[in-house]
């Protein structure tokens, strides 16, 4: 369908680095470098003329202090002319989904024909900050005119000033961590430990299958890690041999006594990047591409972070479906970002509930019934991992590729994000 507001927008191709648990194989590669590696491989695989790229848009949740506009670092890859503009954005875990949406908007409106959209995150390489007081002393010392004054300023440092400040994955507005929010949702929505563990196990099994049969691997740009340059080709969080018993044995991470969210049924901290080539239909066809899918609609929503933090998708999805002009039952494939099993299951519960729909959406009936056979058919973030900024690009790529394989007409992307936000996008095959 032609976007209601303009030109048709194609997902031409996508690829990503392997997703690696932070602190493992990719720990010495910066988020900027990961983004560049994913993009460089996308350029090679699509053979796109780099000079034809009108814009590069990348998402990153915890940017580097030294290279805050990661997208520009990507568009300064020597493969590109130096004249490709770029901007970076942050919609938390939906950032690279938002990057694709941004590409869609610009192309639909005729502002661009070819956009590389993606996202990146290295949770091995997060900025650690000095305390406010120590930072102030350093600034004062750097302004001191004499060595004596400089030393005198630094001498005012107290031991506790030296304790570094680490960014936490917590809501600034409520102080609650993601895990605590997921725990809260499990309790309030009655999501059992067993249901969460089963869902996690399913994620691993399907991801292992998708890796073994090459469908996931095909999307991965091998990363050659210096100094040995040994190739890393697969995600390293996927468990091929996990059991429900093993998952059940894990201790709850956020509420030791009554909790049900564990390291096993939550997505791990991960390093990785993804990149997607988005083009206007005309440009794609003129260049001889057969697009994987088209963007039909997208929507974002936000809820009170103090309520159920990760329920955003339950609001964004019906909005995106409405804009697409289709019903849930027309979806042939659904890709939901799995921050926590409790979050996915809570959202599914909401989609399937008439009462929830009446109360929260003012609809007469439920959004739809979720067919487990077409949900996250190659697993999700619990198994594959979740580099915050990169996940949206991964999901769009995986969905578009699988839509082509199965020749499915409609597919849905759903991502929950920090700040109570939800992101949804509908893709269509033809």
């Amino acid at each position: 369908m032609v976007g209601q507001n303009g030109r048709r927008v194609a997902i031409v191709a996508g690829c990503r680095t392997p997703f690696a648990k932070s602190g493992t194989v990719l720990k010495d590669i910066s988020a900027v470098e990961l983004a560049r590696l994913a993009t460089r491989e996308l350029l090679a695989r699509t053979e796109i003329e780099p000079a034809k790229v009108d814009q590069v848009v990348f998402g990153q949740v915890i940017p580097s202090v030294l290279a805050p506009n990661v997208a520009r670092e990507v568009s300064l890859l020597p493969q590109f002319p130096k004249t490709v503009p770029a901007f970076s954005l942050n919609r938390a875990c939906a950032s690279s989904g938002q990057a694709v949406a941004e590409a869609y908007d610009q192309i639909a409106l005729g502002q661009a024909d070819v956009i590389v959209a993606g996202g990146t995150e290295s949770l091995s390489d997060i900025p650690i900050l000095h305390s406010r007081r120590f930072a102030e002393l350093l600034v004062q010392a750097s302004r001191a005119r004499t060595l004596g004054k400089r030393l005198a300023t630094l001498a005012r440092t107290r031991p506790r000033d030296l304790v570094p400040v680490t960014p936490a994955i917590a809501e600034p507005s409520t102080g609650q961590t993601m895990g605590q929010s997921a725990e809260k949702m499990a309790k309030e929505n009655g999501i059992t430990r067993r249901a969460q563990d089963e869902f996690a196990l399913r994620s691993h099994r399907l991801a292992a299958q998708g890796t073994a049969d090459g469908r996931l691997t095909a999307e991965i740009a091998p990363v050659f890690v210096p100094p040995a340059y040994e190739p890393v080709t697969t995600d390293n969080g996927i468990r091929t041999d996990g059991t429900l018993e093993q998952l059940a044995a894990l201790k709850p991470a956020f509420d030791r006594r009554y909790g049900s969210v564990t390291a096993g049924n939550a997505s791990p901290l991960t390093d990785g990047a993804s990149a997607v080539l988005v083009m206007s239909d005309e440009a794609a066809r003129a260049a001889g591409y057969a697009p994987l899918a088209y963007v039909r609609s997208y929507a974002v929503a936000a809820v009170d972070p103090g309520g159920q933090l990760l329920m955003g998708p339950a609001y964004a999805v019906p909005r995106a479906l409405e804009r697409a002009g289709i019903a849930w039952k027309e979806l042939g494939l659904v890709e939901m970002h799995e921050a926590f099993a409790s979050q996915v299951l809570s959202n599914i519960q909401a989609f399937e509930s008439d009462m929830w729909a009446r109360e929260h959406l003012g609809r007469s009936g439920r959004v739809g019934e979720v067919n487990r056979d077409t949900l996250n058919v190659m697993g999700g973030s619990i198994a594959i991992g979740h580099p915050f900024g990169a996940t949206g690009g991964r999901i769009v790529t995986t969905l578009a590729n699988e839509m082509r394989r199965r020749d499915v007409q409609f597919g849905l992307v759903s991502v929950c994000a920090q700040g109570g936000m939800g992101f949804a996008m509908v893709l269509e095959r033809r």
Partner: protein
Amino acid sequence: MSAGSGTGAFTTVMDDGVAVVSFDLPDESVNKFTRAVRAEFAALLAGLQADAAVRALVIISGKPDIFVAGADIDEFVAARTAEDAARLSRVGQQLLDQVATSPKPVVAAIHGACLGGGLELVLACHYRVASDDPRTVLGAPEVKLGLLPGAGGCNRLPPVVGLRAALDLILTGRNVRPNRAIKMGLVDELVPRAILRDVAVAAARRLADAPLRRRPRGGAAGWFFDRTALGQAIVLRRARSMTAKQTAGHYPAPLAALDVIRYSLASGQVLGLPYEAERFGEMAMTDVSRRLVEVFFATTALKKDPGVPPPAPAPRPVARLGVLGAGFMGSGIAAVAAAQAGVPVRLKDADLPRVGGGLKTVAGIVEERVRRRSISRREGAREMALVSGGTDFAGFRSADLVIEAVFEDLELKRQVLRELEAVARPGCVFASNTSTIPISRIAEASQRPDTVVGMHFFSPVHRMPLLEVVVGARTAPETTVTAVAFGRRLGKTVIVAQDRPGFFVNRILAPYINEAGRLLMEGVPIAAIDAAMTAWGFPVGPITLLDEVGLDVAAKAGHVMQEAFGDRLAEACNLGALVADGRLGRKNGRGFFLYRAGKKSDPDASVYGVLGATPAAPPVDAAPVAERLAFAMLNEAARALEEGVIAQPRDGDVGALFGIGFPAFRGGPFRTIDALGARTAVDTLSRLAETHGARFAPAASLLAQAERGGRFYPSHR
């Protein structure tokens, strides 16, 4: 206001009492001091000296990235006697004296290449301001042409930068970049290009107001070695012994320069300048200088040669490069392409660990340059970012040129060619980096044989300056010029060879290597063979070369040559037996030589046993050894030219110089024969043929030349 007539090379603009003289030689890409330019400059200087409105002068270039490239080489090449050449030197000295003794201060504003006579000009100025641009280089490359700085350079450089830095510049001919130049005191100020002129003008005004006082540099040790008679004597003695060792009696110019510098320090410039002119004249008449100048002209001409007879089509642009095979050669090519041509390169190999190995090799080459500070860390990162790799043809569909560097096997090369053609864009050039397989045989597998060509790189690619472009039977001229042009973008000196076994370089190498093997089997010790050829002027001897190339590679190449040319190029020593003995040369640390911790040490005496040779006891007379080796190569070069493997002697000489380190002072095989005379060459070869076998039978072209008194090059003196 514009001054002078004639060349119109100088334009003068007044800037509040300072005359800014801009040097821009019309219809030339570089500024150089020709006869006409010198006259015009002298008249201009005299006029400005007489002009009361002028308080000071600034000399600046009107060329984009050249200050002054030097003197006019053609002019002293035309000199017939040492006295003629010395006169040219004195003329230059007098002109620059006019600058140096000017009562009005002269300031040089340097951006771009400031070499040879250009450097001597700025040394005569009273103050030097240079741009901090990477394109600014200063140097005295005269020794590279077998000469010495003859327009006052040997006299003026030591007082400016100190003796040690002066020797470093003059004896090596190396260029220095701006930040080295300011450290050694060669320039007084380093400024951004945008303000170069203004800073120079301000300096000129300052100097007109008050004389400049320079502080001596380098501290106590610097003062001792650079400025005291005793320290200078120590430095000079050490420099002489090092130079004598490095030039091995083959290159007289650096030693002559040392003589001039020593004399100038002891006796002052008044006597030093005439002595400099005298020695310059003497050097200009040496055969060494003639050969080196010829080599310079040959490489310069080669840079403009499109590689095919006219009318030459335009080369196709190469924006993206594919390299098949991520081994040492493939990754070397990738590294050089990223560094020199700045193109994105895609490597392909059978599995990812091999691709990773290739990327590691690329990283090693890049990092070495970062470590040596020849590039910055950022530039290194940029080069690395240009090279990526995989196991499929991703990135190859849009490549304009694909170079294969897979294992040396005809069927394999044909297979990769077929695979590539199935996906490549029409017009994509396929270049094979084979050293032994005929390009035309590979091209038989092609749907588009006109786009198939050979690009024979030498290992290690990032160090070896030569590239042989090999033209197959069906290679289109457009394909050849594309390969030649891209080879130049890689910074290589490119010669074009026709598709005969061994092309040119390995063709002339084969009988040379074979003869070394024969000598070995006859009982000449390894060390004596190598010593004979290093004394003849090669950087390494033939046996060391075998270890460097790899005995397996050499055995294979030798076999191909024997098959193609029969007994004449038959292998004399059984390299196969050495390979079977686990000796591959340097690469596995076992060969003709012993290797300790990766470093070559003594010859391995156990080699003789494996080959069944008995080494004679030293001393061995080097002359007959060198004669056999050299003439085996010279004769084969003549044969290759007869067969049209190369288009002209120039290409063969340059190929031998840059491909196998043929002694530069001999100018290459064809120059060597011309210097001997064809008659002498034929007589020697006939004698060798009688004693050692028909393989030495003189080439037909040599016989013809001997009969009719011909030469390879026209005689120009």
